[in-house]
């Protein structure tokens, strides 16, 4: 008796584990209903089409399987001789048309609703560039870059670095896009270099970011939370490494976040001014330069400074790093048209820019001995205007 009871207990627990596995797998197998009205409508439409397709499959494949069994040569040695029937052919032309009309009507309605960006309550400009997103709040004085925050060693050494324990592996960023709940937010989507595509599955928003053009889309999220997505248009080497993370806050929390951002900005500006005012030592510049370089520049130019030529040139022994300081500052601050080299003038502080340029001029045996001070960057930027 005891053994049997134990056996039953084991069996039921096994069964429940299996069932939960199936349920979990089922959740990962299908589209997510998401957290907006449009995403839920898209999900419903998706399920509706699937069921229509299942019914058609059962009929068509059923007829085929019936033939395989009952019209095989051993069972049905003399084939029928019919080879056309206008009536039947008309029927199976008209029925699919009716099914398609049945599917099209809700699709048209939903599409028109999804493309209606009018009456939005706030706007965010989203700019894709290789391989990060930039968010600019049109109605607030807030803008920032959003970079992948999964450490490089996690994907370069997946087993050893414990990446498997990171549930948000490759889907986490340093600065999330923050928006309020129950608010129609309009997104103005564009790109700075190649085409990217901004996608958050839970919002059912996917829009291509195209250089030179601004696309509009919108969302109105029903539940606060963190929603993750990725770039979905091949945009070069690190296409797989530019996630999108949206944090949706309640309206009061969003107001607090905006206030915090404003305060942060004042502090940062003050710190930047202070940093710019002092003269930095080589060691200090090299230390900050290395962190900045490894975070922002090494993706293309590599930690070794050897780059991935010819697309991403080496900086070690390069004419830029060994040549005139002004030209070096210019290319880092303004970027280079027609190449993947973006301008970092607005992405880094003056101190970081000065440090990274100093680092590039002295690391990897470049040893020019040149020091670039934050003040030099300020002067360059002032001259630019």
């Amino acid at each position, binding site marked *: 008796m005891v053994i049997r009871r134990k056996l039953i207990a084991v069996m039921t627990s096994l069964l429940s584990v299996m069932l939960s596995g199936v349920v979990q797998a089922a959740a*990962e197998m299908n589209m997510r209903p998401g957290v907006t009205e449009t995403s839920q409508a898209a999900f419903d439409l998706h399920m509706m089409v699937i069921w229509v397709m299942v019914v058609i499959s059962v009929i068509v494949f059923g007829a085929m399987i019936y033939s395989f069994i009952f019209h095989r040569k051993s069972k*049905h040695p003399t084939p029928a001789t019919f080879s056309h029937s206008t009536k039947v052919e008309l029927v199976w032309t008209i029925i699919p048309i009716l099914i398609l009309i049945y599917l099209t009507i809700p699709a048209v309605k939903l599409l028109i609703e999804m*493309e209606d960006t009018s009456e939005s309550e706030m706007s965010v400009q989203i700019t894709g560039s290789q391989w990060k997103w930039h968010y600019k709040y049109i109605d607030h004085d807030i803008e920032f870059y959003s970079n992948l925050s999964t450490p490089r060693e996690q*994907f370069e050494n997946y087993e050893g670095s414990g990446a498997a324990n990171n549930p948000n592996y490759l889907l986490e960023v340093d600065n999330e896009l923050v928006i309020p709940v129950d608010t129609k937010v309009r997104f103005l989507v564009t790109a700075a270099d190649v*085409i990217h595509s901004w996608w958050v599955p839970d919002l059912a928003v996917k829009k291509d970011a195209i250089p030179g053009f601004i696309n509009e889309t919108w969302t109105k999220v029903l539940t606060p939370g963190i929603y993750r997505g990725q770039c979905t248009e091949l945009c070069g080497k690190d296409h797989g490494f530019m996630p999108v993370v949206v944090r949706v806050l309640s309206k009061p929390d969003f107001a607090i976040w905006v206030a915090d951002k404003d305060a942060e900005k004042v502090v940062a500006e003050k710190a930047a001014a202070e940093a710019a005012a002092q003269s930095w030592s080589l060691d200090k510049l090299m230390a900050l330069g290395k962190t900045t370089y490894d975070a922002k520049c090494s993706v293309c130019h590599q930690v070794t400074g050897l780059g991935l030529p010819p697309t991403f040139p080496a900086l070690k022994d390069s004419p830029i790093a060994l040549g005139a300081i002004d030209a070096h500052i210019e290319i880092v601050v303004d970027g280079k048209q027609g*190449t993947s080299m973006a301008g970092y003038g607005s992405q880094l502080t003056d101190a970081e820019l000065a440090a990274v340029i100093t680092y590039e001029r002295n690391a990897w045996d470049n040893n020019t001995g040149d020091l670039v001070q934050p003040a030099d960057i300020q002067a360059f930027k002032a001259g630019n205007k």
Partner: protein
Amino acid sequence: MGDHHPTGIKRWLYTTNHKDIGSMYLWFSFIMFLIGGAMAMVIRAELYQPGLQFVDPNFFNQMTTMHGLIMVFGAVMPSMVGLANWLIPMMIGAPDMALPRMNNWSFWILPFAFTLLLSSLFMEGGAPNFGWTFYAPLSTTYGPPSTDFFILGVHMMGISSIMGAINVIVTVFNMRAPGMTLMKMPLFVWTWLITAFLLIMVMPVLAGVVTMMLTDRHFGTSFFDAAGGGDPVMFQHIFWFFGHPEVYIMILPAFGVVSEIIPAFSRKKLFGYSSMVYATASIALLSFIVWAHHMFTTGMPVAGELFFMIATMLIAVPTGVKVFNWVATMWQGSLTFETPMLFSIAFVILFTIGGFSGVMLAMAPVDFQYHDTYFVVAHFHYVLFPGAIFGTTAAVYYWLPKWTGKMYNETSGKIHFWLSMVFVNLTFFPMHFSGLAGMPRRIPDYNMMFADFNMWASIGAFGLGLTQIYFLVTIIVAIRSGKPAEQKQWDGASGLEWDALPSPAPYHTFDTPPKVN
């Protein structure tokens, strides 16, 4: 037999014989299939589990790009031209193709085009890495130096395809035996005739778009560069105006193949012959007005999205007619399941599944969720692998006895079929799930939540890769030591190639045209 032809390498270099050229096309496409397949193995090895294990992201992009280009232009398209060369003259009662010298040239361009393309793997900066769709400006301003070799390679393939298409059209219109009216032609000839028109219409468009890329890259134009007043989206419009008919170029001849094979093994005439012809023509016409369904997320106006959504869904109607006609052909037939029939049945079922996901993708508001995810990868592999490639495979088994006079081993053929069937589904079905769960395509690394399905897909892909070696061995064994084939190897087969020609078919097919009733 008075077959005057040089021997050794000269035979193949100088040949103007449709059978020699057909064989060269088929072997060439198989070699490309193995090379493109090897690249797929690299992709699937990298995606076997999360993390970067084998290749760096840039090389991964080169692999996805080259895999796509080689499979589309090097494997599928030449295999269809190979079948056309072998079969069309025999089916319509012609002595050879109408333009034999051009036929030789259109084949011999291909090895050079692909040598050029493949050599880019060894160049500084690597091979093209912008996806087989080579969207600007990633392929123009940001493309590696080898992009120019890619452009030249595409031009050469395009010239080859156009010449092949002209040859088919001229042959079909001028070389039919007396009595072989258009509406008596085997469906394979019909589908190829329509395909040839598609090729002539769209290959010049492809040539145009790569030329615009070339001038953007080197001669200061700004067709696709917004900074110079151009439009990156225009690239996509031009590319897909080629690209969508292109997918029918790859599948229509396969429709023709199964329309020959299913009646043969059902021992019953093809159901609805004329509606099959009209359905093929409708698909071809519709294929010109649906291209922007690849671009629903580019910010088209709603009116444009509605038009392309509805036009695309309409394609389901003629495609449905074809599937229903195949099923009706089997209905009350007298079925046997030899290898060509098995591949044809799998074609009908799995292509239909690919068609279903096609209808889903056509619906713009839901396409926003599917677009550029693995769901799309699953969709087009379902229409290409069990579609185009199963179609060609079925054709090889079906006509091999006619081509070589030797029979393959039926057991080996069936083993090949079941391996293919299991591994194709194991490879591509899980991709539907990873796509729906949110995995974008063309990424070398992914979050844990996509891990299970990727592992299954990789295991399936390795199996599918090995299966192709088994296929090669089966065919070589058949050619070398297969049992002699009969003139009409399949009792249900019909058509001039079975009724009027011995097996193997003679080097020169019809010295005097046969009579067709």
